[in-house]
């Protein structure tokens, strides 16, 4: 009974997928409902754009950094002219923003915005 109710609800909630290709070319085994996961419980992961924006904000609000030079690929020590102490400070700020605990070994490797974004995005507990 619950499964019938669920499939009825799923049938109504489904968002139509617009495909530009011809219908003859799409194989019959592609199930369109896999593009929508209405009742999935593992979707509270952060979006990559959110992660990038938040990390760039943290780096830009650092007093020694020139905000116009900050891009997602910028290297803290080579491009922004910071030193290792500033590096530690930035990683601590990132830890506070995303409520993470980054172990020292990993924190030492985070040298650039790209690495920071990758680490936070791949961390399961980031929020």
């Amino acid at each position, binding site marked *: 009974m619950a499964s019938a109710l669920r499939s009825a609800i799923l049938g109504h909630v489904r968002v139509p997928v617009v495909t530009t290709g011809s219908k003859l070319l799409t194989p019959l085994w592609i199930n369109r409902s896999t593009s929508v996961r209405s009742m999935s419980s593992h979707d509270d992961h952060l979006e990559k754009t959110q992660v990038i924006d938040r990390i760039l904000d943290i780096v830009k609000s650092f007093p020694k950094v020139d905000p116009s030079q900050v891009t997602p690929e910028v290297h803290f020590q080579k491009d922004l002219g910071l*030193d*290792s*102490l500033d590096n*530690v*400070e930035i990683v*601590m700020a990132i830890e506070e923003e995303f409520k993470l605990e980054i172990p*020292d070994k990993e924190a030492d490797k985070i040298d650039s915005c790209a690495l920071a974004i990758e680490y936070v995005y791949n961390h399961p507990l980031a929020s």
Partner: protein
Amino acid sequence: MATAVPPPCRSEILSLFRSILRSARDFPDYNIREYTKRRTIESFRDNKTLSDPSTIATVFSDGNSQLQVAKRQAVVYSLFAPNIKSIMDIKH
């Protein structure tokens, strides 16, 4: 005279810096937290250019004792933390 204590290497210094900043997070009082962070950043930056090994070792052991002080005080302050948080802690 006892043999000189070897000066700390770069990773030890960075690890001490990180530990003190982490211990600052445990303080319930906003002012003390910010002071701890500000003070460690300033003092590590001021001593960045030291080159004499014995001075570096002295300053490093000072930093270690300050770390122990901060850890103990964080525990003591948490025992008597006020219920009302500082206005700066409340995010808008």
